[in-house]
Structure formats: C-alpha cells, structure tokens
C-alpha cells in the first residue's frame, strides 16, 4: 500500500465508524476540492452509495461555477441534498474583523441546520495542514451546547477509538481528511479522476487554490491548467494554501475565535 492507499483506507474506516455510531448523520459539501474527495471516499466506503444526506450551507455568495457544479453532480451522484441559508451579516458578532464576520455567517447557517435536522454527527472535510488551529482537531470532535468547540478540553483519541457522546444538545464533528495534506488531495484527485469546479485551474495567469465566498477569496498567480500541473506547482510552492482567505489573516486570533464558535 502506498501513502494514498493508506490515507484512503483510514478515511473509509472513519466514515464507517461515523455511519455506525452517529445517527442522524450528514456530510458537509462545500463544493470545494476537499469535500469532493470526501464524498468520493464515502462512495468507496459504502460501495457507490452515500447513505446519508449531504448539506450545502449556502452563503449566497459562492461563485456561479460552484452552483452549477452542485446542481450537476448532486443529480449525477444521486445525492440527498439538503440546502440551508445563512443569516445576513448584520446579525453576526460586530466585534469580529470584517472578513471573519462575513465567514461567521456560515457558522450560524450550519448551526441552524444541525438544530433543524437534530444531527448527532456532521462530517466535515477539514485538514490539519490547512491552518494551525485545525491542526489541533480530533477525528471525532464533540461539540457541546451552543455547538462550541472546547479546544482546551478535548477527549483523548488513540488506537482508532473515538469519543461518541450521546447527550442532548451535543453533536460530533467527524473529520475523515484530517491527516491528508493539500498535495495528497490533488494526487488522489488525479489518481481517481474526481471532477472539480474549473476555478481551480489557471485562467489568465491566475487560479483559485482555496474556494470561499467571492468577496473574501482571492486567486493566486499560476499557470497550472491541469491536475498534474497543479501537483507540480504545489511541489515547489512555499506559500500557504489559505493565503487567499482574508479571514485567516485579519488578526492573530480571528480564525481561532471563528472555530471555537463552530466554524469549520
């Protein structure tokens, strides 16, 4: 088994644990490269089926290409798609810096969906290497009342045994891609032929490396027009993946504050 085989096997194990232990369960589908890989892994785990709904928490500010992608593949892959919207920015904590405040709309939208569907488990495609705060995450990350992440009081997690608390008002975030790196995601996309929104590929010398809302995401300089070229570019790149995500850089603790409140 090479490294991708091992990552795949581990993610499938995690998805099957989540499906067995957490009911009702749903998967977040942000339409980005990571969540497409995650969805692909779910189809591997459940032999072509996705036996739980996928949720798109819609900020209403995604790129048109992303909405087209969603509509096309939710049909093609026979997904049970749940859509949720987000409150206006005026309803969000005004002490957050502007981009973080805008991003926090998604947290509020997600919280509303979790409550609406009384979810015990939410599968999300975050990775440790994306961002320092995400590096601290557990594979099964329990969220207490108000969906708060208690970063200082996380359960032990070892030997593939995960905490699965069943208390009212709690849910568990499940992170099957936690150990994957950005380049692993791309190599797996290449190996499996997983479809992507074409915003990831260069047009006029620029491409998106990470996709968020239109107004707070900027493209990076690149000439990579195929998956293989993206991989080659990443192998020499020294900038961080989320450099184009404004809310990560506004202040030292802005992203951590977002995550404690339930952001992904």
């Amino acid at each position, binding site marked *: 088994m090479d490294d991708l085989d091992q990552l795949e096997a581990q993610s499938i194990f995690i998805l*099957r644990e989540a499906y067995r232990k957490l009911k009702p369960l749903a998967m977040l589908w942000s339409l980005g490269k990571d969540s497409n890989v995650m969805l692909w892994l779910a189809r*591997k785990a459940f032999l072509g089926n996705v036996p739980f709904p996928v949720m798109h928490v819609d900020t209403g500010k995604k790129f048109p290409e992303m909405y087209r992608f969603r509509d096309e593949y939710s049909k093609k892959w026979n997904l049970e798609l749940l859509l949720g919207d987000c409150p206006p920015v005026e309803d969000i904590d005004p002490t957050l810096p502007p981009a973080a405040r805008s991003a926090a709309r998604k947290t509020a939208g997600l919280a509303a969906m979790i409550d609406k569907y009384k979810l015990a488990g939410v599968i999300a495609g975050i990775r440790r290497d994306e961002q320092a705060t995400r590096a601290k995450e557990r594979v099964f990350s329990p969220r207490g009342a108000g969906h708060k992440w208690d970063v200082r009081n996380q359960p032990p997690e070892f030997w593939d045994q995960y905490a699965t608390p069943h208390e009212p008002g709690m849910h568990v975030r499940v992170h099957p891609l936690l150990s994957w790196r950005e380049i692993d995601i791309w190599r797996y996309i290449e190996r499996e032929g997983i479809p992507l929104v074409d915003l990831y590929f260069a047009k006029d010398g620029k491409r998106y490396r990470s996709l968020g809302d239109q107004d707070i995401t900027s493209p990076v300089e690149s000439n990579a027009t195929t998956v293989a070229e993206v991989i080659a570019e990443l192998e020499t790149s020294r900038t961080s993946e989320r450099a184009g995500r404004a809310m990560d850089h506004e202040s030292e603790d802005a992203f951590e504050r977002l995550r404690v409140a339930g952001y992904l």
Partner: protein
Amino acid sequence: MSTIPTPAPQDAATPIVIVGHVDHGKSTLIGRLLYDTDSLPEGRVAQIIESSKKRGLTVEWSFLLDSLQIERDQGVTVDSTRIPFRLGTRQFVIVDAPGHRQFLRNMITGAADAEAAVLVVDANEGAQEQTRRHAMLLRLIGIRHVIVLMNKVDILDYDQKKIEAAERDITALLHQLEIEPTVFVPASAREGDNMASRSDKMPWYKGPTLTEALAAVPAPSSRADLPLRLPVQDVYRFDTKRIVVGRIERGRIRVGDEVVIGVHGARARIATIESWHTAPQVAAIAGQSVAVTLEPDVIPDRGDFLYPASAAPLRAARIRTRLFWLRQEPLRVGESFKLRLATAEHQVTVAAIDSVVRLEDLTEHPAEEVPPEGFAEITLAVSETMLFDAFVPGTSDGRGVLVDRNQQIVGGAPLIGVAESVAGRNAIHPTGSAVSVWDRAQAKGHRGGVFWMTGLPGAGKSTLARGAETRLFSRGVDVSVLDGDTLRAGLCSDLGFSEADRRENVRRAAAVARILAESGQVVIVALISPTIADRELARQIVGEGFHEIFIDTPQATCEQRDPKGLYAAARAGKIEGFTGIDAPYEAPVKPDLRLETAHASSDETAARLAAFIGEETRLDGATRRQKS
C-alpha cells in the same frame, strides 16, 4: 498539453512523537528542526519574527507550534499538533506532545500512532516527573524506537563527562521500563548543535545528529504476513447483498479463504471482495478497509473477529492488563466499564488492582486504588467470554481502551493475557450470573434500578422512600429501601462521621444497592450524601440504572420539622459537622428528579416518586433503551 508525469507512489509519512518534561525544549527543538531542514512555508518565519517582536523577544522557535493564542499567552503548548517535514526523500510527521501534566490525554492522542519517539531531556536538570511519565507511556503505547536528545548541553559547556553522567541516569531509568534507547544525541536545540548539522563544539561525539538519527528510523514492519485478524466494523445490506465491512488489522484475505467468526466460531468462506471504482480484487492485506460477502451468508456482529482456524486469538473472561488511567479521580476495584478492543465492546468490572507504579522511581507496588492519571496492572472480569490477542508493540493487537457510560475514553489497557486465578487479599473473582438481566426483568415484570435520594437532614427522604416503597410493593414491584440510619445501625456501625467514614458509608450503600439492583430489585437509597463527589462515587459504583433524586426542602422547613431533634442539638453545639449547620450541602445540579416538599403533602410527593420509579423500571422502557 501537460508533459508533467504523474508523481510516483510514495511511502506513507513516518510519525515521530516528541516528548519530555515541560521547558526541556520540545517546541524549540521542532521549530529549529523545521527551520534547519528548510521545511517552513513562506510567511511562517516572518510570522514568528513578527510575533516574537510583538512580545519583545528574539526569535522564538517554539512560536511556530504554539499557534493558538491561548498557548502563547500562557507559554505552554496545549494540544498535540502534527507537522509534516521531509528529510531527503522520506516524509515525516512530527507530533508535538505537551509537557503539562494535566494535558496527558493530548499527549497520548498524539503519540499513540508514532513509529518512533524523541525523548527530550534537559541535560542539566536530568529526568523530571514528566520525563518518567512520558517514558512510561512510550512503553505502554508500544513505541520501541526511542531517540534520547540530551538538550541544552551548551549550559554544560559541551563537557563530555557531565553529559555522559546525565546519560547514564537516563539509561538506568529507561532500562527499568525495558526500553533500550536507540541513541543519545547531545545537542542544543536553541543553538542548533547536532540538530541538522554536526556541532564543532563536541568533537568527542561520534554518533549521529538528530536528523541522521531520524533518517535511520526503520520503516514500519508489514503486518500482512501475520495470521488474519479482521474485526467486523459493520454489516450492510445494499441491493440484495449482505456485505461485511472492516479493516484488516493483520494478515490477508483471499477469495475462497475459510474464516472462523467471533467467539461462537461459525465458519464461512470469503465469497467476494466488493469495491466501488477500484479494479476487482481477489485479495487484500493488512491496513486495507475491505467489504466482503460470506458463503454461507452468516451474519456476524460488529466486534466479531474473522480469523483463521489455524491461529485463533486467546479466549477468556478474566484478563490481565496494564493500564494508563486518564481520569482525574482514582480507580477502585468494583468499578465497571466498557472495554473496547478494535470494534468490539465488552462489559468489564475491575476485579483486582494487582500493582500500581510509583512515579518517583517507577517501581511497582500493591495498592488499593489507581491514583488519578496513574499507571497500574489490573485484572478485568468480563461479562462474557471474549477473544483477544496480547498486546504487541507495533501491531494493533491487544489495544484495549476503557470507556465510561458516556462513551468517554477513561484509560488505555494494553492487554497482557488471560488472568490466572490466584488466591490473595486483592484477588477477587466475581462470577458472571447465568441468569441475564432480561430474564430477571421478564420474571419480575419490571427492571431493577437504584434511586438515590439526597437532601438535607429532615428533608423527608426516609418518609418519602417508605411511602413510595409501600405504593410500589402493592403493585407487585420487588422493592427495598436502604436508609441511612438503618445502615448505620448494622452494616456501617463501625463508621463515625469523619469525611473518610462518610465516604465509606456511601461506598458501602452503593455497593449493596448495586448487588440488589443486579438481582432485579428496585432499590431506594435514602442518604444525605451531601457532596457531589459522594453521589458521583455512588453513580460510578452502581453503573447503569443509577438515578439521582433531589429532595429539595428549604433548610428552614427542615429545621422547623426536625423530626429527630438533630438541628436543635447542632444549634446547641452538641453535634459537630452537621450538614446544613456547620458542614456544607451541595445540591445536585442536574438530578434525574427533583421533588419539592415544602408545598405538597408527603402522600402526594411519595406518589410522584413511586410514579417516576415505575416509569423508569418499566419493561418496555428497557426495550426502548436497548434500541436507542
């Protein structure tokens, strides 16, 4: 079109855990290593310099890891984190483990999957408490490859004699744990000596630098050639096929292989290996998550091992195990847990505490309890015969984990083997009953349970308990009352009212209640049990079926009633430590039932209590719970 070839398959990254006492320099080591090996993303170094400047410091390598705001503010690493880095063509993942004692569980979380460990020791200070604790954990989680980094040797002026003396102490310590360190590297992480490049200040040292030592860590050995262990994770039914899924922990499967299933030992053949978007497979090896169909179409349960008839796992209902206990409270004989092993879950009771490790010198001693976050060897009595393999480092064999009623992990249990029946003071042998809980409930028409009433003296606990007892008995419920005064007249007549004696009183009451409840009775306990800790102890001893009932009567009302004249006596100074007068009462925060007695007759309240108990012990209630 692209001319770039698809990258060749890579080996998986080797996880390396960094452990050691707080302030011995773990984070500095990692920061320095990443910098020296040029593994930092652009912007990261600038960030550190910026952050260091803001705090008026010169470049602080540890800021790289202490990326959470709270960590920087306190100057300690809160949680483990993973950082990929590359040496030549080989990928590593550094797992940083915190040194603060209360963050033990984070350290284990990070360290459990590591292939090798770097134990960082301040050469001036030598082994400290967490040095010993972490070394012990390395042994218990099964890490065989240990590199000892003697850090801060610049403070010893790079003096060979002093450094080697410090090494000898560490060697002796590790020897006690049967850990044979692979190499000692004298280094200064801050100055960069013997990290990525050889130090010119220690010409006497001929061994490897840290990066050379890491590059020499052997790749994980394959588990594919061991006899098969495939723990069943789940059974799906898609279309018309019944599909058994799980990850192969060791060995391999091939279509046509005969396997034995679980403790019941049914046999079946691997009929097909199912997959989606993968080339059809006829074989699979350790590490792969597989889906198979069986012929004949037997239905295994989650937790059943599939294994070859020629190499069966061990089978026992009493198991000896090492333990790293993760709770902040002690562990005592008689406490019950679920033991998770791979995907199986078994009900277990601590039958004996065989020995406890004294952390000052890592020696083993007999003891009554395992201290908070302590290490021990214990015997577990399992509610049924189970299959297991003894713990072997570098495999997933015998990796037991204890979880509590809330599915929280409370300890790691590397299983040693089948427990011998030994006579001795600490050896007890609880026998499993052949009569199941369900049989008893069916016969009695209700389930057993413990209803633990707490409240101030004079709150009305005994009166209500007796009132409910009468009502329940008249409906045919097998019910009994354990009342504080009755217990103290007999079973607990040797106990006084000191804190230790009160706690012992609670422990005995809970132990008796548990025995009665297990025999199918409804047990009402009426005991002041004034502290949250008292009731928590009771809850732990009783296990499933414990209900906390708060008799909520204002103190003024209790004092006015004063049926036994105790408040008057306490006010007159004739009784010391009287709950509510000069000893505190901690009301339950979230009782299962709260009964306010001030504005209702005791008849009405007793009827409410009886109704609650009746509802909680209903037969179909049991079914409902089992399903959920």
